């Protein structure tokens, strides 16, 4: 039998059969809940993790139209604009063809670091490397 922690007794503390205020089972239950919450967070809040911690994202006029893994080499277009071609190679992604006059999007080259962006201004299309949770993901890029 354990003594109450408080030295100054109250009416309640005179009751017999004191057990620890927090039982082992309570701790286990609490732990299980924390674990479940963590799993829920990883699987529901951040589903993009499924395609890797760092992945590519294409937006047309500010709307995300495609998320893609950087792990498999690939060349593709998007249905919203067949004049643009993208390539994924060695963990990096780039615009490789565009019908725009200045080709700044293609000149930007292959991007692989979280927070990097290439933009095709005339077509209002952006290619971004997203790194959810990467500690040095850039919030913006100066050029």
């Amino acid at each position: 039998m354990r003594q109450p922690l408080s030295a100054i007794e109250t009416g309640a503390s005179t009751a017999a059969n004191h057990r620890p205020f927090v039982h082992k089972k309570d701790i286990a239950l609490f732990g299980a809940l924390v674990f479940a919450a963590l799993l829920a967070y990883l699987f529901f809040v951040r589903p993009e993790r499924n395609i890797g911690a760092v992945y590519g994202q294409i937006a047309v006029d500010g709307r995300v139209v495609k998320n893609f893994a950087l792990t498999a080499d690939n060349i593709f277009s998007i249905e919203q604009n067949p004049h643009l071609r993208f390539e994924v190679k060695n963990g990096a992604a780039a615009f490789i063809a565009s019908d725009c006059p200045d080709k700044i999007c293609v000149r930007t080259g292959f991007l692989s670091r979280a927070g990097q962006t290439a933009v095709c201004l005339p077509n209002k299309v952006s290619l971004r490397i997203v790194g959810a949770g990467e500690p040095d993901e850039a919030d913006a890029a100066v050029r």
Partner: protein
Amino acid sequence: MKKNIFKTCAGILVFVVSSLCLCACVPSEQKYRAEFYGLFDTEAVLTGYAESEAAFARRAENVRARLEELHRLFDIYHSYENVNNLYTVNESAGKSPVKVDGEIIGLLKRAREGYELTGGKVNAAMGAVLSLWHDYRSAGISDPENAALPPADALAAASRLTDMNDLMIDEAEGTVFLREPGMSLDVGAIAKAYAADVALSEARGAGFVSALLNIGGNVTAVVPPEGGRASWNVGVQDPALTVTGGRNFLDILSVSENITVSGSGAYERFYTVNGQNYGHIIDPETLSPARLHRQVTVLHKDAWLADTLSTALFLLPYDEGLKLAEENNAQALWITLDGEWLYTEGYARVSKEAGKP
């Protein structure tokens, strides 16, 4: 039995309190991002923390709408119904003063201040020269075979119409007047940062206290970021490609005060004539694209000054640029044509790479 109920209640209480504590540890503010097009001939990206996507969208729309107003006012290429903008001012050169919005007066006063403190290196009255280069560059990009340089005599003639003293600002009347016919304003070296500052200051007044606005590579930060972070990460794009065509960040800056980071380089906007690249930043003295550095990056708490100084430093030799930066309490990084790094002490303090082992 009574005791068990008490215990159960206590258990539930412990659980609820613990859960609340746990929730408090998970950042309640999330990071969101919005892209805007059709502003200042470039893309604009707003990043910020908000309690919900809807709240962020509302704030982002306010910022976008304000930027659009400012874009229309500062636009030199188009006129808009019921608005006197810089296009109107340019069209009225040598004819009559134009009644304009207070933001145009504000911008042009800064442009004049920038002209004075850079010894004329950054000249918003240089529209006549810049538009020549703009036209030849656009033509050269769409038809590379026939790309040509603006004729020297045309440039010389245009340069006679670039006197900042011919820009008359009448604050009492709220008018702007270019005295010389054929003269024109080009505020490309200041308008984006000035507008970002106006839009973000107003947003901050309305409670949007954690935001980062990137207009075409000019980044203005309002701190702090939320979500338990002490600073924003601002990447500085490498002007050079790797051998495999990759583009990296040269550096990451850790920004924990209200500041604008402005870059000037010639590796994106340029055209090629006879195998030689010609950039878009024109030296008012030589009337040709600057070729002293590969890139400069400038940090200053005043957005318009960061933007002005990044252009000035791109046009000035390193020692003169360093002096100008120091006089104005600006921090800067220069990437020389050989790829060497030169930077101020304050730059190294926020840099992940400079001066680090």
